[in-house]
């Protein structure tokens, strides 16, 4: 749910990165954090375990500039990918304006990808959202690994509705900003429709 403040002329939107454990959601946010000008970002918060697995969420506030005199602020969140953190994932989806699904390109993670995608759809439904009506993009991460599945197979399995999709190598930044821009554009376009 976007929050528009006419008084301070700000638009605030929430984007959630979803996907199976170790697919690179946190790495996406870390890359964005490292490559963004200090004045355009706030502190990145990671609620993680001692072994750097996300426990609750990562949070990164970003300012993208002004649109018609309104400052646009995006709050990026990741969910914990591990299966048993489902209760936490549901909480983080509350009030979401746009979703990035990060898939892991490796053959052996295909089952986890599919399970996570089904979990995303179901958890959204529980909150009263329909994934097909939300601003939504897909990212195929880890494209540089030798065991990466060819793109058409990933598309068929993970993107049946043919939303915008991007190939990525998150630690090197490949596809990271393309993905963010795509979902941010969809969110703003949706805001226009809503207005």
């Amino acid at each position, binding site marked *: 749910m976007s*929050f528009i403040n*006419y008084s301070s002329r700000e638009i605030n939107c929430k984007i959630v990165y979803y996907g199976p454990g170790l697919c690179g959601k946190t790495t996406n946010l870390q890359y964005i954090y490292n490559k963004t000008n200090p004045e355009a970002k706030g502190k990145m918060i990671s609620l993680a375990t001692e072994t750097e697995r996300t426990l609750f969420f990562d*949070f990164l*506030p970003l300012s993208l500039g002004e649109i018609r005199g309104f400052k646009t602020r995006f709050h990026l969140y990741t969910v914990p990918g591990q299966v048993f953190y489902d*209760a936490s994932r549901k*909480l983080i989806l509350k009030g979401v304006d746009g979703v990035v699904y990060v898939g892991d390109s490796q053959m052996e993670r295909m089952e986890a990808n599919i399970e996570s995608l089904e979990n995303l759809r179901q958890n959204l439904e529980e909150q009263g959202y329909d994934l097909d009506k939300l601003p939504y993009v897909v990212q195929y991460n880890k494209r540089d690994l030798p065991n990466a599945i060819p793109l058409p197979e990933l598309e068929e399995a993970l993107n049946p509705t043919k939303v915008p999709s991007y190939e990525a190598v998150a630690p090197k930044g490949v596809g990271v900003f393309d993905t963010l821009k795509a979902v941010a554009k969809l969110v703003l376009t949706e805001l226009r429709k*809503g*207005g």
Partner: protein
Amino acid sequence: MIQQLVMYEEELQKLNAICEVLHRDSNAKAVLVIDKNGQSMVQAGDVDELDVTSLSSLTAGNVAATGGIASLLAEKEFAGQFLEGEKVSYHVSIVGQRVILVVLFDERSSLGLVRLRVRKATNDMVGVLETMVKKSQSGSGQASVFSEITDDDIDNLFND
């Protein structure tokens, strides 16, 4: 379809006034009003040295987690939460099931006083929030600013 919460000048001024009174009457360090999704809405008091954005996000996460625990225990919600620190204490309550009211205070105040003043502020705030939600739902005309956004406006944001 995205449901928007919209803050107009009139409601902002009313919320500011309520928070200023709460800040003064409870001898608090700072008072924050946060949307349940973690967006900061209103602040009063000594907030210059606070990272309000991070505090808002973490508080909302904390409230969401507490709400999750409540539903597991078949409780509607845990309406309040209090964390006691050595120098600063943190009192959180939910107002109108919609927003989160945070009061930060030190030894100049007490939990009893904060609770008392929060109760009064909560009563005052509920009406303002109801108006805000109604206006957000009806659009109240001003939302047309966004219907005029063009593809170029959106593209221009990303010209780096």
